[in-house]
């Protein structure tokens, strides 16, 4: 299999994970989907590597895979156990409409890829990356539970990681690792924050924040 078809194959689970994320209300499923998507995305730099495998890419993929595929899901599962919430009950936007918006986002991303003149080999991956970012933002905006919003944040981060792999392969290792560290800290802090929100409001619905007044 050549590089282009490999890249095209990798795009499919990413896009399907996006749609499934928009469709699923079980938080455990969301964690698994984001972890799966992250695992697929964290090996994409290997595909876009031109020339022989460099230490740089290998380190980046290994760190990203272990963080996105193992550490994040573990941290999130732990948080979920603590707050005893299983489902996103009533999102601001229903599931069918979310999926429709997700597909529209994908189409918009494909259009954008064609418009920007992204090379044929990476246009699909570019579109998938952009669609993943849009999916993440959609999740953050339309879901009530703080936990699902964290999922949206992680999905958006997955998209950005893929976008970097597509557009700037072989960028400085430093910056990429720093971003991964930031995300790690963010997941950690958000886990604690969700725990505190849950203790304060007896729920992790973010619309309860409206009752906060001076």
């Amino acid at each position, binding site marked *: 299999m050549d590089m282009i078809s490999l890249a095209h194959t990798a795009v499919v689970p990413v896009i399907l994970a996006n749609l499934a994320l928009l469709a699923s209300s079980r938080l455990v499923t969301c964690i698994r989907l984001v972890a799966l998507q992250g695992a697929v995305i964290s090996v994409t730099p290997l595909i876009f590597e031109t020339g022989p495998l460099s230490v740089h890419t290998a380190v980046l993929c290994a760190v990203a895979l272990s963080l996105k595929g193992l550490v994040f899901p573990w941290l999130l599962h732990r948080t979920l156990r603590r707050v005893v919430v299983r489902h996103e009950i009533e999102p601001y936007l229903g599931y069918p409409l979310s999926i429709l918006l997700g597909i529209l986002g*994908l189409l918009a991303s494909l259009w954008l890829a064609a418009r920007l003149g992204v090379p044929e080999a990476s246009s*699909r991956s570019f579109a998938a990356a952009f669609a993943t970012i849009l999916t993440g933002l959609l999740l953050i905006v339309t879901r009530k539970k703080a936990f699902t919003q964290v999922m949206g944040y992680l999905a958006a981060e997955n998209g950005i990681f893929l976008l970097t792999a597509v557009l700037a392969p072989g960028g400085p290792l430093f910056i990429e690792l720093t971003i991964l560290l930031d995300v790690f800290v963010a997941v950690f802090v958000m886990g604690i924050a969700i725990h505190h929100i849950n203790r304060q409001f007896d729920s992790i619905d973010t619309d309860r924040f409206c009752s906060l007044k001076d």
Partner: protein
Amino acid sequence: MTARALSVLVPLLAAPLAFGVIHRIKARFAGRQGKPLTQIYRDIRKCLGKGATISRTTTWLFRAGPTINLAVTLTALLFVPLGGLPAAVSFPGDIFVFAYLLAMGRFFTIMAALDTGSSFEGMGASREAVYSCLAEPMLFLALLALARHSGDLSLAGMLSAVSAGSWLTGAPILALVTVALFLILLAENCRVPFDDPTTHLELTMIHEVMVLDHGGPDLGFIEYARTLKLWIFAAIATSLLLPAASGSLAFDALWGVAGIFAAAAAVGVTESVMARLRLTRVPPLLAAAGAFAALALILVEG
């Protein structure tokens, strides 16, 4: 010529056997011995030997339903290739003829059900109409993706253009289309999770309730048409996975039949591990099949 004849004659003889495979797999999952693989042949023969009791409220539509359904299913079978064997009839755009022949069969089944005047059959007919409305665009989306991928507008042409070898270059598209086609197979043939063919409660039936009032030869025709329809969809869904036509008649036919029985086994396993979905959960599942097909269509090199 022999090959063309074989791709019609083999299903005519072996289609009920695929149903036997489903029953056997389900029985084994449940820890039972299961009925003989050839039971459905005996059922059909028994039905053909019986007389029919026909309600006085019905008209000719009721009598015509099963016959027309069997006739159009047989005609649709002509367009379907078997593994590497070519279809008996094939021309550009025959996917529309194929799809609407099956739709016509369904239309007359619904008409016959409504003709009985039974409220249960009316409910089954309405559900069948809703699901087929949803399944039809999904079938077209999947076939459209295949047509664009292979650059051929005939059913036999687009199916023979893809084989196990083309997964090296078009794996994402073919995987998506195969999953979509398998879901459509389950929906069109009224299998779990869309409909439960073994249920005995009229309220939960879809296809079975529509044929409750048929008996004798009519019921035999319905059963036979049902096995042929399963064969047709299994042949379409599995032909993407089979090796390319080798030119050897026996080899191609054998692979084709093996594909059908593998699909039947997959249906049996699906039915054993899943429960029927609630009626309101069915449209989202069909929409998922549509999303797969649409994604494949988007991903095809354009």
